[in-house]
């Protein structure tokens, strides 16, 4: 149940973020918006680490090097998003991003990259995914 609440809140924050980013991007430019939101977020997150007494950053050296740079992928995601958006507009771009994300996540979990037991995908799961993709398309266009 706790996980579901986190995931729902994550979606709410994501929508808030894209709404805010669009407004900031209109005013300052897309890259400036990305720098401002992530920069201020970083500063506030550091403050939270300090205030909460979280000392686990000392173990960061145990994290494999590529994983440490995961956050930097945001720049490539933003770049692809902006370029795709200019070419095709919101509907095609948003639905393509979401569908690719859902399928890539499924593929990676199925391949066991997350380390936990690989999920079993039976007929209901595939129908569920197909229905969700239908929903994404209906809502985007």
């Amino acid at each position, binding site marked *: 149940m706790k*996980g579901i609440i986190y*995931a*729902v*809140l*994550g*979606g*709410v*924050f*994501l929508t808030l973020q894209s*709404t805010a980013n669009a407004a*900031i991007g209109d005013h*300052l*430019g897309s*890259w*400036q918006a*990305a720098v401002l*939101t*992530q*920069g*201020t*977020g*970083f500063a506030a*997150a*550091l403050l*939270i*680490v300090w205030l909460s007494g979280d000392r686990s950053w000392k*173990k*960061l050296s145990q994290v494999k090097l590529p994983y*440490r*740079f995961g*956050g*930097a*992928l*945001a*720049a*490539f*995601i933003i*770049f*692809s998003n902006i370029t*795709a958006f200019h070419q095709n507009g919101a509907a*095609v771009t948003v639905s*393509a*991003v*979401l569908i690719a994300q*859902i399928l*890539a*996540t*499924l593929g990676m979990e199925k391949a066991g990259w*997350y380390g936990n037991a690989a999920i079993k995908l039976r007929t*209901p*799961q595939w*129908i*569920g*995914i*197909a*229905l*969700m993709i239908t*929903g994404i398309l*209906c*809502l985007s266009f």
Partner: protein
Amino acid sequence: MIAGILLALMAGALISVQTLFNNKVNTVVHSHTTTALVLGMGFVASLCMGVLFEGADFWDWKAMPAWFWFSGLVGIGVVTCVVKGVRLLGPSYATTIVMASQLLCALWWDSAGWFDLEQVPFTAQKAVGVTALIVGLLLFKSKPKEKIRLLHEIS
């Protein structure tokens, strides 16, 4: 057209890769540190790309409303909630819920015309979309016993 679609598909796949990497970081350090690292990396990378693409023009910032300075707090919410959701539910299930919540919020705020958004009417197509999304999500997470029952209902 095709290039744009390929870029959008790449963006979606990269979001999944980022979710995976963040999850790996979180297995070693706490979620506060994970969030700070992810946002810090994103900040540096975006700064490099901005300067690369726009050169000196990048530094030309207009005066801006005060709330812009607090926009980063939303990013903390995103990273923290998604990382915790993935850890508790597994990546695919968490991603499907995040997406459904995202689409429903967007639909709700668009229909209500909140946050200065242009009001978009709620149509029959949107109703079908919401239904398909939610039924699909429930079906995806259905347990073995329910699976059989739901399959019967469909056939």
